[in-house]
C-alpha cells in the first residue's frame, strides 16, 4: 500500500489523512467542488475534484470515486463513515479494480448490512435479540405477527439501514396499520430497500455498543464498549467510554457477544456491534453491526490508546492487529460532544454558514477532531457537524468537568452551534449522577431546558 484515496469529507477525511500520515502513506482526497479548499483537502497530498457539491454527483457516486482512485494511481481507498462507507458496491468495485478497500470485504459487508440476517446469525449464536419478526410483506402480516408474539409497544425498523430513518414506535394494531406504509416508503427512499420488520420497544433503555477489530489472520478483539444513550430522535449527541454502571455480567456478555458475532460473520476491519440495554431488567439485546469506523471512535481510542483507523489500515494491508486482547486495557473515562451547526433552542434547526472565527481549546486530555478553521464554511449540502470535542480524564466526574471547561473555551463565530446544549446537559445533576436512557434528552432534559430559558 502506497497511496490512499480518501473518499469522504469533513472531520473524518482529516482523521483518515492523519492516520495515513502516521502509516507513511500518501493521500489523495476525492472531494466535491465545494470542498477543494478545506482543511482535509490541504492535509492530503493531492486533491481531485470528482463532481459538484451535490452528494449524489460526488460523494455518493461509486463510479466517480473509483475513477478518481484509478486516475490518481491510488492503490487503496478509505471510505470514512456515511456516504458510501457501508455500500457493498463500492467495496466490490474496489476489488474488481485492484484497489484495496480499507474496510470489510463486500461479501462480509452484505452479511452484516442486512439487519435481519445479522439478527438471525446472532440468535443462532445464542445472543439475545429480543424477539421480533422477519421481514414483513405488508401491514396485515405485521399486525398478525405482533399479536402472536405479544410485541407491543414495538418498533418498525428498516432492514437495510440505520440512523432512525424509517423507524417508528407503535403501541397498537391501529398504530401499526397507520405507520407501516410510511415507514416502508421512508426506508425505500433512504436505502433503496423498503423491507421493514418489528422489534420489541424497550421503554427505558441505554444504547451501548462494542468496538471490535478483526484481521485476516483470524484475530478478533474488542476495545470495550461505548455508551451513546444521550440521543435526540435517534441521533447520537454525546458518547462515552466506558459505559458506567453496568453489572459485570451485562458488560462482559456484550463484549463476548460482539467478538463471537464478528468471528461468526468472518468479519474483517473495524466494526461496531450495537446493543440496547434494558435498564429495568438489566438485560441486553443485539441491535446491529455497523461495518465502518464510527463517528464516536475517538472515545475508545482515548481510553485504550489503540488507534482504530491505523488498525484498519494495518488490517487492509494484510498485517495482523497490533494488539491482542490481554494487552488491551480501558483506563479513565472519555466523553465526546458532537458540535453541530444547529440551533438547539429552535428545534435543532441547521445553521450553515461561514465560520468567521474558530478557536478550539488546547490542553492535556483534550482532543478536537474537526475540519473547521477561521473562514471555513459549513455547507448546506452536507451534515451539520462542525467538530467533535473529546476529553479524557481519570474518571467520569473529572471528564465532565474537563468537558465543561473545554466547551466554555470553544469559540465559534458566524454560525449557531449545539455548544450551549452540551454545556447544559453536562451541567445537570441527572447526567452527572448516573447514565441516562435514550429518551431522557427528549422527554426530560429538553422540555425543562427550553422552559428554563437560559
Amino acid at each position: 500500500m502506497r497511496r490512499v484515496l480518501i473518499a469522504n469529507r469533513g472531520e473524518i477525511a482529516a482523521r483518515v489523512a492523519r492516520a495515513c500520515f502516521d502509516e507513511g502513506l500518501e493521500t489523495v482526497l476525492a472531494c466535491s467542488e465545494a470542498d477543494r479548499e478545506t482543511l482535509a483537502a490541504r492535509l492530503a497530498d493531492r486533491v481531485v475534484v470528482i463532481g459538484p457539491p451535490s452528494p449524489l454527483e460526488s460523494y455518493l457516486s461509486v463510479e466517480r470515486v473509483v475513477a478518481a482512485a484509478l486516475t490518481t494511481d491510488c492503490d487503496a481507498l478509505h471510505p470514512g463513515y456515511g456516504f458510501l462507507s457501508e455500500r457493498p458496491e463500492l467495496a466490490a468495485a474496489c476489488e474488481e479494480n485492484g484497489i484495496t478497500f480499507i474496510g470489510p470485504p463486500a461479501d462480509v459487508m452484505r452479511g452484516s448490512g442486512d439487519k435481519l440476517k445479522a439478527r438471525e446469525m446472532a440468535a443462532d449464536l445464542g445472543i439475545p435479540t429480543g424477539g421480533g419478526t422477519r421481514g414483513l410483506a405488508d401491514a396485515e402480516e405485521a399486525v398478525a405477527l405482533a399479536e402472536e408474539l405479544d410485541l407491543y409497544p414495538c418498533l418498525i425498523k428498516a432492514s437495510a439501514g440505520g440512523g432512525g430513518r424509517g423507524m417508528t414506535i407503535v403501541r397498537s394494531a391501529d398504530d401499526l396499520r397507520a405507520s407501516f406504509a410510511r415507514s416502508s416508503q421512508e426506508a425505500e427512499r433512504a436505502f433503496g430497500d423498503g423491507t421493514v420488520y418489528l422489534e420489541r420497544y424497550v421503554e427505558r433503555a441505554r444504547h451501548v455498543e462494542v468496538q471490535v477489530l478483526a484481521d485476516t489472520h483470524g484475530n478478533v478483539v474488542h476495545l470495550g464498549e461505548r455508551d451513546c444513550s444521550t440521543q435526540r430522535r435517534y441521533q447520537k449527541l454525546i458518547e462515552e467510554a466506558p459505559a458506567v454502571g453496568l453489572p459485570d455480567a451485562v458488560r462482559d456478555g456484550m463484549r463476548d457477544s460482539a467478538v463471537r458475532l464478528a468471528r461468526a460473520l468472518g468479519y474483517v476491519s473495524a466494526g461496531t456491534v450495537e446493543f440496547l440495554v434494558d435498564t429495568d431488567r438489566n438485560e441486553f439485546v443485539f441491535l446491529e453491526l455497523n461495518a465502518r469506523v464510527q463517528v464516536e471512535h475517538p472515545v475508545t481510542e482515548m481510553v485504550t490508546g489503540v488507534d482504530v483507523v491505523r488498525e484498519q489500515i494495518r488490517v487492509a494491508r494484510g498485517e495482523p492487529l497490533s494488539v491482542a486482547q490481554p494487552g488491551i486495557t480501558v483506563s479513565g473515562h472519555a466523553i465526546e460532544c458532537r458540535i453541530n451547526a444547529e440551533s438547539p433552542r429552535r428545534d435543532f434547526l441547521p445553521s450553515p454558514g461561514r465560520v468567521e472565527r474558530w478557536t478550539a481549546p488546547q490542553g492535556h486530555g483534550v482532543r478536537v477532531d474537526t475540519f473547521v478553521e477561521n473562514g471555513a464554511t459549513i455547507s448546506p449540502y452536507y451534515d451539520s457537524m462542525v467538530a467533535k470535542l473529546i476529553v479524557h480524564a481519570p474518571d467520569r466526574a473529572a471528564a465532565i468537568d474537563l468537558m465543561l471547561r473545554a466547551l466554555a473555551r470553544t469559540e465559534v463565530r458566524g454560525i449557531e452551534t449545539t455548544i450551549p446544549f452540551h454545556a447544559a446537559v453536562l451541567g445537570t445533576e441527572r447526567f452527572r449522577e448516573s447514565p441516562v436512557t435514550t429518551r431522557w434528552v427528549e422527554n426530560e432534559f429538553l422540555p425543562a431546558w427550553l422552559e428554563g430559558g437560559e
Partner: protein
Amino acid sequence: MSLSPDEIRQILAALEKSEWDEALITVGDTSIALSRNGASLPVATGMPVAAPPAPAPPPVTPAAPALAPVPAPQPVVEQPPTAVGTAPDGIAVTSPTVGIFWRAPQPGAPPFVEVGSAVEAGDTLCIVEVMKLMNNVTAPVSGVVGAIHVPNSGAVEFGQTLVTIVPAAG
C-alpha cells in the same frame, strides 16, 4: 506595482477630454474611479481586494475583471464599454465529472473535433469516461473549436476546462 501621480494626472486629463460618464481604472494596487453628470460611481467590481480568494481553475472563463489588467490608460478610454467583460478567448467547456478524456468515440476512430472545426450547439466534442460510463460532452454554442486542453486519454477533474469554443459571430 502602482501608477505615479504624474501618470494618474495624465489619465485624468485623458478621461476628462473623453465622453465617458463613469470610469474605473485599476493598475496593480492603484485604482481610479470616476463619474459625472449624475452617473453613479462605478465602484470597483474589479478591485482585486474585494474578490474572495479565487478557487483554482474557474469552471468557466472568467468574465474579465472590468478593466483590471489594462496597462495603458488611453485604450481604456476609447474602448466601448460593451467590450468590457467579454472574454476574447471564447467559451470554456468543462468536464461534468472526474474521469478519462477521450477525443474519439472509440480507439482508432477519428476524433470528434480538431482545433478549427466548426461545431453546432449540441455537437459532441469529446467523451469523459467514468469507470465504464461514457459521458458525451457537447458544444453549448455554435462556433469554432479554439483549443483542446487535454491530451487524449488524460485524467480530468470535475470542472476542468476541456475545450474552448469561439462562438460564431452574431
